[in-house]
């Protein structure tokens, strides 16, 4: 036999490409997965879009508030898809009894997370682009009216979604398939405090205090500010990113701890069997 092959470098592109390739091929043939990308966002868009058509006819309603509804919907959907993309990818590995194959491969659990993030970017780009085009065609809403700020809004929301996705995954790995409902539900815990469709100022005291710890609340407040006044409260955006880094740090710490614990207790080995 030849001399031993060297270990796979930590930053080798092929393993990441392999993880991403599996995800892309999974989507290529699956109608339910395409529905997840296009069908649900489209339905949301139609329901809320029709509502804005109605609201625009009410004389006392501010036009900027009406357009803010559609902007909020598009950005909320992006956050939701980012979180779900990570959690559901892990669930798919569990359902297909494939997780162990990945855990024994020359990749780390962080590679698996990175692969999930890459596939999440692809899905979010696809889903959001189609939704944004339809919002323009059907309801004359131009998401790009948010200007360059849009990039930062999207980034801040994606980071929050990924952090929650990683945290949810950790909980599923720790507690098993009983916890898989979190993959779909956890983001809605944050919705009332994210100020998606309403400003933080209308929230009752406790809810308003909680919203201060939710990065998305700063993004949605910022979005409304840009649409109404044309100005972005930079401090709010910085706060959103600081909280995002905190969320990501906590999520990665918990995820690493759960994996380390599973290597001692073997809990993850019960998954999918």
């Amino acid at each position, binding site marked *: *036999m030849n001399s*031993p*092959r060297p*270990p*796979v*470098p930590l930053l*080798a592109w*092929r*393993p990441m*490409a*392999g*993880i991403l*390739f*599996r995800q892309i*091929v*999974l989507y290529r*043939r*699956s109608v339910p997965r395409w529905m997840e990308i296009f069908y649900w966002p489209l339905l949301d868009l139609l329901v809320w879009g029709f509502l804005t058509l109605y609201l625009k006819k009410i004389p006392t309603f501010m036009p900027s508030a009406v357009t803010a509804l559609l902007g909020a919907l598009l950005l909320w959907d992006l956050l939701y898809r980012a979180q779900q993309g990570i959690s559901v990818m892990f669930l*798919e590995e569990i359902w*297909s*009894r*494939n997780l*162990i*194959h*990945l*855990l*024994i*491969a*020359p*990749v*780390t659990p962080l590679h698996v997370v990175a692969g999930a993030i890459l596939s999440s970017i692809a899905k979010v780009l696809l889903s959001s682009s189609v939704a944004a085009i339809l919002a323009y065609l059907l309801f004359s809403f131009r998401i790009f009216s948010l200007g360059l700020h849009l990039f930062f809004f999207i980034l801040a929301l994606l980071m929050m979604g990924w952090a929650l996705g990683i945290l949810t995954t950790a909980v599923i790995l720790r507690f098993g398939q009983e916890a898989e409902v979190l993959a779909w539900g956890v983001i809605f815990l944050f919705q009332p405090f994210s100020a998606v469709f309403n400003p933080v100022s209308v929230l009752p005291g406790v809810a308003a205090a909680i919203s201060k710890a939710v990065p998305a609340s700063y993004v949605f407040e910022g979005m409304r500010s840009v649409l109404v006044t044309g100005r972005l409260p930079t401090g709010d955006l910085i706060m959103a990113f600081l909280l995002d880094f905190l969320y990501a740090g906590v999520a990665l710490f918990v995820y690493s701890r759960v994996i380390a614990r599973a*290597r*001692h*207790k*073997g809990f993850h*080995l019960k998954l999918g*069997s």
Partner: protein
Amino acid sequence: MAGPDSPEVLVAENVRKRYADEGPWAVDGVTLALHRGEVVSIVGPNGAGKSTLIQMMLGLLVPDSGSVRIFGNEMATGRRKVAHRINYASTDLSLPYSLTVRENLMAYALIYNMRNIGSRIDRLLRDMDLASFRDVRVGRLSTGQVARMGIAKALINDPELLFLDEPTATLDPEVSAQLRTTLQTMVRERGMTLLYTSHNMREVERFSDRIYLMNGGRLVASGSVSDLMSRFETEDLESLFLQMVGQKRGKDE
């Protein structure tokens, strides 16, 4: 060259593992070594600790005490350094059903950082008699074909050490024999080391250079087939297996 004089590929020393603090030992003080080019079987009843032991060898589980080293590398702390040189297939595992055979192999060839992926996959599909199923989704394969697919995945990185957990449990006798021949060729030609578990004692007798018999988390006997037969004065491995398991159950009662 295989046998005790060949280089050690895997060394397990006094490995112990239990899943609950006060629970029974799933693996209790196992010490063994595998040498390059050997086919070694671990046999034992359900719950003997075979799967737990293999999971510790793969670095999936950390032993409570003792150590597992593969190619001199401690698996509990440095799994990634040798993960590209080993692989594993088990009937308990599967691969995504909505991917074709070729797509699944392609994904794992990339994950294992392999090159010449196309020719590698073609060769594996021929070896595993899956060439005509290359573009068939895994979900449409028979149980036996899925098992062969799992073994093809386990061979994607030309492993120097291969773990197979009951590889032929779902295969008919003809396909099992064919698979054994393929694996024996790889062992002979490439010096691959093979550790496998099976409940098919006839197969173990025919296939293994050495056998470890486990019961209650412990190794209760080891040696070549002829060695074990003469030492325990039994006609075949199955009689020895039943004798060992019976003794343990008798003690437990």
